[in-house]
C-alpha cells in the first residue's frame, strides 16, 4: 500500500521533470493579470510636470524602461510600438506609451521629449524622477534597475484603462501581435 503510493508519487515527479525539458512555449504576449499590481507611480513627465498613474486612467498604457543613450534595444522597441499603433489607426489614440528613464541622472525632461519625437505614433510620454521614485516603480514590476547601471529588461508592460496589469510583451512580439493584444484589451476594458 505504502509502496504503491510512493511509486505513484515518484511517477508524478518524473513527469514534472519531463515538463522541464520541453521549452517554454514562447507565447508572444504573456498574460500576467492578477500577478502584477495595478499601475502606480509618481514621476515627472517630459514637459516637466509631476504626474501619477491616475493621470493615465482611461487609457491603455504601454510601460517600458529604457534610456535615451541606448543604441539598440530601446529605439527598436519604440519603433515596434509606433508601427503597431500606427496600424491600429484612430483606435491607437486611446493608447499611451510611458517611457521610464532608468538613467534619471542624465535623461532630462527636454532630452526625453527630443528623443521620443521620432516615435510620435506611439503617443509616448517620457518619465523621469528621483532614483528612489524610479526604483520604486521598477521594483513594483520586478524590472531590473540599479542606479548607475544601464542593464534593463525587454518587457513592455501592458495596462488596461483601469490601470490593471494585463500582459507582458516580449521582444519577440511582432507588430501584428501587439496590435492584436491591444485590440483584445481595448475590447475587454
Amino acid at each position: 500500500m505504502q509502496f504503491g503510493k510512493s511509486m505513484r508519487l515518484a511517477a508524478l515527479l518524473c513527469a514534472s521533470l519531463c515538463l522541464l525539458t520541453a521549452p517554454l512555449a514562447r507565447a508572444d504576449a504573456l498574460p500576467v493579470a492578477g500577478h502584477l499590481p495595478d499601475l502606480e507611480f509618481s514621476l515627472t513627465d517630459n514637459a516637466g510636470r509631476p504626474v501619477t498613474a491616475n493621470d493615465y486612467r482611461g487609457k491603455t498604457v504601454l510601460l517600458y524602461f529604457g534610456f535615451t543613450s541606448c543604441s539598440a534595444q530601446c529605439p527598436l522597441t519604440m519603433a515596434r510600438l509606433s508601427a503597431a499603433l500606427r496600424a491600429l489607426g484612430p483606435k491607437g489614440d486611446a493608447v499611451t506609451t510611458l517611457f521610464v528613464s532608468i538613467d534619471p541622472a542624465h535623461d532630462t525632461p527636454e532630452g526625453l521629449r527630443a528623443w521620443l519625437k521620432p516615435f510620435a505614433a506611439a503617443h509616448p510620454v517620457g518619465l523621469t524622477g528621483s532614483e528612489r521614485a524610479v526604483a520604486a516603480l521598477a521594483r513594483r514590476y520586478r524590472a531590473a534597475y540599479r542606479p548607475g547601471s544601464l542593464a534593463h529588461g525587454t518587457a513592455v508592460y501592458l495596462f488596461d484603462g483601469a490601470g490593471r496589469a494585463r500582459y507582458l510583451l516580449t521582444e519577440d512580439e511582432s507588430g501584428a501581435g501587439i496590435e492584436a493584444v491591444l485590440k483584445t484589451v481595448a475590447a475587454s476594458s
Partner: protein
Amino acid sequence: MSPLYWLTPWEPSFVVAAATLLAGLAFWRGGRAARPGFGRILAFWSGLALLYIVSHTQFDYYAEHEFFMHRIQHAVLHHLGPFLIALSRPFPVFAAVLPLERLKKPLAAPLRVLTRPVAAVILFDALIVLWLSPPVHFLGMIDWRLYRLMNWGMAVNGLMFWGQALNGGRWSPACRILMMLAVVPTQIALGVVIMTAPHELYPVYGICGRAFGGLSPLTDQRIGGAVLWMCAAMTSVAGILIVLWRDVVASGRTAFSRPVLGRAAGR
C-alpha cells in the same frame, strides 16, 4: 555606496524581519538555560545570518534578476541555512523559553505524515521540481506573493528535512542516511538538464532585466544548473558524514538502532 546600503532590504518584509528577530532572541535567551556549546552557537548564528542575508538584503535584487543568483539563494534557503540551524539542535534551546510542545500540538498530525521518510524525500524534491518548471518559475518570479511563498516554502521545508535527517528522533541513522541519499538523484538530474539545455529555459530574467549585463543568458543558466547539482551532492554528503560519525561511530551504537528518546536534548 556605503557598506550599510548592501544590508538594507531590497523588498522589506515585516514577517522575515520579525521571524529572524524572534528566532535570534529565543536562541539567545534560551542559551542561558540550555547552555549549548560553542559549535552549536556558531552553527545557529551563521545559519540564521545566511538565511537573513539572502532574503532580506540587496542580495535579493540579484536573486530576482539573475538565474544563478536565484539558485544560490535557494541553495542557502533550502540547504545550507537550514542545515546549519539543524546542526545547532536549536529545539531544546528554544524550548527553554518558548512553549514549543504546546505550539507543536496542532501541527502534530500533519508533521507526522510529512516527516515519514518517503514523504519527506518526495516533498523535498517536489518543491525543487515544482518551482523550477518553467511556467511556474515565471509566475514565481513576477508575482511577489508567489515569490515569498516560494522562498518561505523552501526555508521551512529545508528546516523540516535537515532537522529530521540530522536529529530525527524517531528514525535510525541508517534510515536518515538513506533519506539524504535519496534526495540527490532528482537534483542532479535536474541540474544536468538545466546545465545542458541548448535554449533558455527561464526567459523571465531577460524579460524583466538581468542584473549582470556581461553574462549571457545561457552561461547564467549553466552556472545555475551547476549550483543545483553541486549543492545537492555536497550538503547530503556532509550530512551523511555527520550522522555516521555522531550517531554511529562516536555513539558506539549500530546504524540500525533507533536513537534513545530524549537524546537530542543532551550535549
